[in-house]
């Protein structure tokens, strides 16, 4: 296993401790519940925004905790939704008179655990609301299934709500904002390699040296199909078409464009992808008001990338540009 890891069972705990040690002035850590929260929150004059999904998607979500973003995150084991207790303790710790907003990526495990936790918290009179994010266009919606997955698009929900919450938005206003962002954001990803959860110790799926997984999930779930690796531009074209036609995005739209690395792909390649995506936006008459090139929602060390488009309006553009401060810094 080509990983920096001690006892695999301690991987998440040690990562959390590392994040805490690097940000002791700003964050607090409650190890029993994998809980990382802002040292200066909760505050009763601000809605608390929290998220917890499986680990292995860093910087999502523990490294997105900070002013203008999340107030707390309570991740589970790698790729496993947090147990009910983690969710419940996270809500309780971030209790605020203005309420607690739980952002949930649309996976059955995350939903069930958070549902139970929300019920428990409400039973105690805590004001808490949950919102489900499902931006992945790879798996088609269907009444039978749980619906689309929540992937890199969750960044935009977090950022918009985080900014609005700092300005005193009510939980009802934030839920409306979630609806708006989630309704206008679409993502699709492609994997070139598999990834290995430390405890499992072996790759989550097999893939040939010349193969790619189109529409892969951020937990290594298979996507639309297995195919031969194509030139970067052809891959972008497929992701762009899937994403752009889904909403659909239309000539004249102002958009945020995100090229998100899945963990093992270097930023140099992400910019090669961005180049083509920007060309496609231009051809489609979309104006890129803001761009994001880097890692926002990963799958451990998986080599791959996802493309996200978010349709903007004045409010969103302004919220995305608002200041924020998180553990991830570039200088």
């Amino acid at each position, binding site marked *: 296993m080509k990983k920096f890891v001690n006892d695999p069972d301690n991987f998440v705990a040690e990562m959390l401790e590392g994040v805490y040690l690097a940000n002791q002035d700003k964050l607090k850590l409650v190890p029993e519940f994998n809980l990382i929260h802002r040292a200066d929150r909760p505050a009763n004059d601000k809605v608390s925004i929290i998220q917890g999904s499986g680990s292995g998607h860093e910087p999502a979500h523990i490294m997105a905790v900070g002013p203008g973003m999340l107030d707390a995150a309570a991740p589970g084991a*790698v790729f496993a939704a947090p147990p009910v207790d983690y969710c419940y303790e996270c809500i309780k710790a971030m209790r605020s008179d203005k309420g607690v907003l739980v952002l949930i990526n649309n996976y059955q495990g995350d939903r069930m655990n958070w549902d139970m936790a929300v019920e428990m918290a409400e039973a105690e009179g805590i004001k808490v609301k949950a919102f489900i994010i499902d931006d992945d266009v790879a798996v088609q919606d269907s009444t039978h299934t749980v619906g689309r997955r929540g992937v890199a698009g969750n960044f935009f929900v977090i950022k918009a709500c985080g900014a609005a919450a700092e300005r005193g938005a009510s939980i009802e206003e934030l839920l409306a904002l979630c609806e708006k962002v989630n309704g206008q954001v679409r993502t699709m990803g492609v994997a070139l390699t598999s990834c290995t959860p430390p405890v499992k110790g072996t790759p989550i799926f097999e893939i040939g040296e010349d193969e790619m997984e189109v529409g892969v999930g951020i937990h290594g779930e298979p996507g639309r199909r297995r195919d031969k690796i194509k030139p970067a531009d052809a891959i972008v074209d497929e992701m762009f078409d899937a994403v752009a036609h889904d909403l659909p995005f239309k000539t004249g739209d102002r958009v945020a464009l995100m090229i998100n690395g899945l963990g093992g792909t270097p930023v140099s390649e992400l910019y090669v992808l961005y180049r083509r995506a920007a060309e496609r936006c231009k051809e489609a008459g979309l104006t890129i008001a803001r761009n994001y090139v880097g890692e926002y929602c990963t799958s451990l060390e998986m080599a791959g990338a996802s493309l996200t488009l978010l349709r903007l309006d004045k409010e969103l553009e302004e919220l995305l540009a608002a200041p924020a401060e998180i553990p991830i810094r570039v200088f």
Partner: protein
Amino acid sequence: MGDITIADVERAVRAAAGTVLSNQQYFSDLDGVAGDGDFGASLAAGFRVVDKDFDTLDKSSIGAFLLKISMIITRNVGGCSGPIWGTGFMRAAMLSKEKTSISLAELEQMLTAAVDGIQQRGGAQLGDKTLLDALIPVRDTVKAHAEGGADGATALKACAEAAEEAIERTKHLEAKRGRQSFTGERSIGSLDPGIVAIATILGDICTEFGVSRASKAA
């Protein structure tokens, strides 16, 4: 008399814990085929505690005991399995408060309560290729044997076989719940780890009680 004592329940749960711990890798590998490969580790995180704390668990009644199991699983198991298994044990516990022994008919009611709870929690139906496709036939088997007045051993053997059959019967189905559902048609042909787990556990319980039948799935 065909009654199941609290001692039987304890042995069965302990055997189940053994099954989960010794099959962790195998269960995770099954989950890796169409899911995300964490099923074995998730479940083991809970049953490891069950196994470790076993001697100190409240055994004043079957209900009290199963409630503890439910809480340990809810506390330690993430993913889908925590809520699913935690809810199942919880509902079964509700119907066995104060009881130190139960009849097959009462067991059937407990299993029905567990199935209902799991369905409310996760919204899965029979045929969605989840562990319910093993649990529901098992419940039906207990019902049939209870009505027929069979003894526990006979019923247990039949339950293990019913769960075992579910593995192959659902293999060709498309998963509709949990992560495997995202793979859509590609989940067809893969074994559902939850169903395999139920079958493997029942097989090992048979062995534990010396019921002549070795689990094929283990």
